[in-house]
């Protein structure tokens, strides 16, 4: 790197020493420099300096999801958000909190739990993930459908742009329709339209009681039926999952089709739900097995394993069993969440592009989609990890917010 551009970057981040690029590899590629700014002004100044010198910046939090998206064509500057980890304002009586983007979800949940509250998003595979990464990837898991996702809970945010500005949108109150919701635009944008530095969220009281049940079904058809019946019943449920046999076995259960049920609520409601779930399982000829949550932990870990190929399909609940089956036949560990309409497929040894395309086509035939959550760079070059909604609108937005392609260039599509 030429020294004038490096000087400009150094100058932008006075509070930080340069970091070791080796710690910031993405897809085996090292950045030329790495910084961890201490406040939002430095983030904006760093972006601005990079923008001026034609350098590509990749914002990153806990670095658990940097393989989501197309491989980057160029990677000059690693921008770690871990230096921005403060709780800006927490008002328990309002059930709202404002935090910096580099705060880890674990830290946040610990603070909230001390007041009997939580951010009601599914625990991600790794609890060191940052709030910024959570929003930028907008992923959801087992609780989705029963509970909202991060994108539904964000009340407002501030993001740094490559022109050095720090625009905010939304606010800190739970209901607000003032102006355009840029914070919703950043949710799921993978940092391509701005670097989130601060966000406000709506919170929920922690449920007083939770319970986990693993239901071993007779066959795949009755497992699918049982999952559906549980979803249709009045239960204090937080999650229902349908597991193909291999996924079950990998989660420490028998190699049979399973339905996992997670209950949460007031004790009496949870207790009755357990009884009703037992009755439904009984009618379906399924065995109720005691569990301490290990299968859930293992499934989550699988969903977030970056060495493997991980796919997520969104399909109507009625097509979910079919896609779980199809993914299993393709050699994946497969499971689905009917309430979220999502199917996860995990292939330790990777998948060939034709298999991914076939699953995508099948999902699309049901009006759904397939997203590649993690895979080798090769696979991500051969198969578009996403399917773009409106590519033209996305290009136009990128042109407005990051005309030189300074932020995560090429993540979404050529140049974007």
């Amino acid at each position, binding site marked *: 790197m030429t020294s004038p551009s490096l000087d400009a970057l150094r100058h932008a981040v006075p509070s930080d020493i340069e970091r070791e690029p080796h710690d910031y590899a993405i897809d085996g590629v090292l950045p030329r420099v790495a910084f961890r700014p201490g406040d939002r002004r430095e983030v904006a100044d760093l972006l601005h300096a990079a923008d001026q010198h034609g350098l590509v910046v990749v914002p990153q939090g806990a670095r658990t999801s940097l393989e989501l998206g197309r491989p980057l064509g160029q990677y000059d500057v690693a921008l770690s958000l871990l230096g921005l980890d403060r709780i800006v304002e927490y008002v328990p009586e309002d059930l709202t909190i404002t935090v910096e983007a580099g705060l880890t979800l674990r830290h946040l949940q610990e603070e909230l739990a001390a007041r009997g509250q939580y951010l009601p998003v599914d625990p991600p595979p790794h609890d060191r993930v940052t709030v910024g990464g959570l929003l930028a990837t907008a992923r959801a898991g087992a609780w989705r459908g029963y509970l909202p996702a991060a994108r539904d809970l964000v009340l407002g945010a501030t993001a740094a742009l490559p022109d050095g500005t720090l625009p905010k949108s939304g606010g800190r*109150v739970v209901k607000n329709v003032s102006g355009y919701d840029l914070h919703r635009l950043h949710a799921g944008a993978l940092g391509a339209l701005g670097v989130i530095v601060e966000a406000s969220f709506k919170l929920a009281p922690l449920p007083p009681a939770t319970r986990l049940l693993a239901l071993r079904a007779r066959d795949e058809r009755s497992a699918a039926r049982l999952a559906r019946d549980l979803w249709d019943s009045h*239960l204090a449920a937080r999650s229902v999952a349908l597991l193909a046999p291999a996924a079950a076995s990998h989660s420490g259960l028998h190699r049979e089709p399973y339905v996992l049920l997670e209950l949460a609520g007031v004790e009496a409601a949870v207790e009755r739900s357990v009884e009703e779930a037992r009755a439904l399982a009984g009618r379906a000829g399924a065995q109720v097995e005691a569990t301490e949550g290990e299968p859930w932990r293992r499934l989550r870990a699988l969903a977030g394993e970056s060495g493997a190929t991980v796919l997520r399909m969104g399909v109507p609940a009625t097509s979910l069993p079919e896609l779980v089956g199809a993914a299993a036949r393709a050699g994946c560990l497969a499971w689905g969440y009917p309430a979220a309409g999502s199917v996860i497929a995990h292939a330790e040894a990777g998948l060939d592009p034709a298999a991914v395309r076939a699953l995508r086509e099948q999902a699309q035939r049901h009006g759904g989609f397939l997203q590649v959550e993690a895979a080798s760079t090769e696979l991500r070059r051969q198969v578009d990890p996403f399917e773009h909604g409106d590519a033209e*609108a996305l290009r136009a937005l990128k042109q407005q917010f990051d005309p030189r392609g300074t932020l995560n260039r090429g993540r979404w599509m050529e140049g974007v």
Partner: protein
Amino acid sequence: MPTNAPTPSALVRDLQAALGERHVLWAPEDLLVYEYDASIDRARPDVAVFPGDAEETAAVVRIANLHDVPVVPRGSGTGFAGGAIAVRGGVLIVTTRMNRILQVDAENRLAVVEPGVINLALQQAVAPHGLLYAPDPSSQRICSLGGNIANNSGGPHTLAHGSTVNHVLGVEVVLPDGRITWLGGRQLDAPGVDLRGLFVGSEGTLGIATKICLRLMRQQEAVQTMLAIFDSVEAASAAVSAVIRRGVVPVALEMLDQEIIRIVEPQIHAGYPLDAGAVLLIEVEGLRESVAIEAEAAIDACREQGAREVRTAESAPERERLWEGRKAGIGAVGAASPAFYLLDGVVPRTKLPQTMQAVQEASARYGLRCANIFHAGDGNLHPTVMFDPDDPDAVRRVLELGGEIMRLCVQAGGSLTGEHGIGLEKRSYMEWIFSPEDLDAMGRVRAAFGGEERFNPCKVLPSGHGCGTGHATEIRHHLATPGVYV
């Protein structure tokens, strides 16, 4: 035919050719009703059109572009922020003909509708399946789902279930250049940048929704509705926080003050006591067991804050009666006063007691009657100021009071609008909560979608030329001292 009958302009002729003469209104007397919505502002479009589908809508947009005139989407015209007012004339695209429910997929809990479908019509179509569409604005008997999408509308049940945006899976949109596209899809969390989430709440400035895919929810097993009666607004406000403090988030938590009770009760007979200082309408929902426990916690919290009495609806008709008073409240004000100005502001719920007190003091200072009927659980205020439109000084005082109440909300750390939108009404106040940098970024969104000058001009953002709509706007500009409250 008299020779001096007006002849249609070239614009009108092009629109007639595209839609048929029946679906194009251009005579001034036919356009009268399209000058208004539920706000104070008014302006006449040059022509109002009623396309039947997305293709016709796109054709209209392209014709308007060719003639270089503004386009303004309109649903039922019940918006309070002037969003559907054709400030600079042009073509008003009215969605009333696009009123079909295209699909109710009960098994997958979703519905596909056209934008002109009335909110309540969808509710009625899905109820037999044991399903509901959660956003329930009080105007649900008349407002369109397209308008709900545009304004990201809320309702009493937003407290638990979130605003409209949380229930929209995808939208088919005609963009300002006439292109038709889908944002989002039929599933939650579609891949990619969330253009769906950006579009919802954009107040008809980024395009026109022509089809909407909505998420439906299952009706709950049990519900309990309570009426907590207080001697003062302050006590009722304090009870709101007390309920939340107990770890209970009701599905609805609404307040009515004495002024509105005295207007509503004689008309609706909902059973609200006329001598109460304020009442809270509290609803909890879920499994029988949790409803029982949460209801008890809510009742305790109200008693602790000095509730005189807490009544529980014992039957469905009783429950509906309690709600009828709430839902018909604004209509009742209309029947009781020749004119009223309904405000929409938000404060953190912990700031409700002090804000409500300040609102009452300010109304008294301006010598205006102000009734309050609002979503207390969300901190979403709706001070409703009654006035005599024939009193020459009244409009000025009303608008000044409105500006003052907005400032109170902003100073309390709140927002300019919780559900009615910025529209035309609050453009001038945007600078109270957003810096020039913030507004510039929002402007870029508009630029990315194109048609900044022509697509629903003069709405949401404070810039724009030739946007004056006379008296009301002038007063608001005068009230808005930029930068002071950021």
